[in-house]
């Protein structure tokens, strides 16, 4: 249990908040306070849209301690629409064919659960983009 550590990361984890470099405009995730492109200070918070696509992926069959509850689970590098790569789990993908280039969107899920006496850590994961039907048409068809 590392309460303070997870608490410090909440802002980044809950809503994919990184930084933007006011000098060259690069969007940064995770936050690093110094622009990786131009080395200028970059401390302005920037909330990412959460849209991206799968850059690479794998399935973890042998999880590290603390993640057994979720195994097997899929992990990925996701290329965010704004540019950066982010390492995260893919969720809601059982039975889905995962491919490089597949569009995904950020959701906030349980990252780990430290049991009945511990806390629950929440953070970003990505899932396949849910198709948005024109609600009225779909509804009419189902009635």
């Amino acid at each position: 249990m590392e309460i303070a550590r997870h608490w410090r990361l909440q802002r980044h984890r809950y809503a994919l908040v990184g930084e933007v470099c006011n000098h060259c405009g690069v969007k940064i995730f995770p936050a690093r306070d110094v622009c990786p492109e131009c080395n200028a200070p970059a401390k302005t918070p920037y909330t990412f849209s959460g849209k991206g696509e799968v850059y690479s992926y794998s399935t973890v069959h042998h999880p590290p301690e603390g993640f057994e509850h979720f195994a097997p689970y899929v992990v990925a590098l996701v290329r965010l629409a704004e540019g950066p790569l982010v390492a995260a789990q893919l969720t809601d993908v059982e039975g889905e064919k995962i491919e490089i280039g597949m569009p995904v969107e950020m959701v906030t899920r349980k990252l780990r659960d430290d049991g009945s006496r511990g806390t629950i850590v929440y953070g970003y994961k990505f899932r396949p983009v849910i198709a948005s039907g024109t609600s009225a048409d779909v509804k009419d068809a189902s009635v």
Partner: protein
Amino acid sequence: MRDVSIIGIGETPVGEHWEKSLKELAGDAIQAAIKDAQIERVDVLYVGNMCSGTLNGQEHLGALISDWVGLRGVEAVKIEAACGSGAAALRLGYVAVAGELADFVVVAGVEKMTDRPSEQVTAALAMASDADFEAQNGLSFVALNALLMRRYMHEFGVCHRDFAPFAINAHKNAVNNPYALFPHAVTAEDFSAAKMIADPVNLLDSSPVCDGAAAVVLCPTEIARQFAARPVRIRASSAATDTIALHDRRDLLGLEGAALSAAKAYSQAKVTPKDIDLFELHDAFTIMSVLSLEACGFAERGRGVRLGAQGDIAIGGKIPITTMGGLKARGHPVGATGIYQVIEVALQLREQAGANQVRDARLGMAQNIGGSGATVVTTILEAVE
């Protein structure tokens, strides 16, 4: 700056050492190295180790091991750079002798991993990555390599079975290494059928969890002949870093830290990849072998995997790798690996590699990698005539 040579080597078999503790393993290797060098004095002991705090509940290995091995009083300290700890310790030993701060330096690498259940070992190894943004998202160390491998396969249009020669070569070479964990051959069929760890990385892509210790003795080259019939000169020693997290890399498959580290080593040694007779690379996973070969200039980007199929990586090939089994088949006791690699290059240069001897080996390179390419230590060794 003084020229530095290796005058003694010692290693324990790599294995599941149920009967031996971390300090006993380290002690065995250090005593063997001191005996091999026939020195009577040690000025400094450097201990490369990654996981003693998390897996053995023991830090402060410098004091622990120096006392245990009969070196009470000497300067001793632990060096940690994840799986690159061994070579990072070697580099500090090199710096101490080259910088005239010490004459006789023992550099040991030790790891005792099998006392813990696998989930805890997996979690401990994941500490080599970015804790906040990789490990805490559930990415194991294998998973990070799987992400590299999948992307490589995608970008360069290669299949999983194209990586088989790297595992087959390592296992074949381990057969003649009495210190190897897996001294048995594997086939392409074994490779394809191996248990999946993190898709596409299977068991035969991966180096095993195990215990082991290895040690070398360094001294100035000018007096090396007094202690060793065949000293091995450190022609170059270099270290470089890259971002700890994969997602921060400018070029995911470029392994820039390895390229930088190798370029510095070539420059120091005034050689090119063509001059290297054998290469003990960091084959923690088959994909790492391929990326290292490319980053170090032995293959064009995207073509490293072909060196396997062409037989170039075999003993007798253009660039023999993992000549004593590599991380894959000799085993990967993480903090000790960098020293095992250097010892294996030394054996080749001393012409003591037995059935696996690379003919006319004059110049050998070892490259030890911490994390998924974040710390890279390259050592070029030369047989002293």
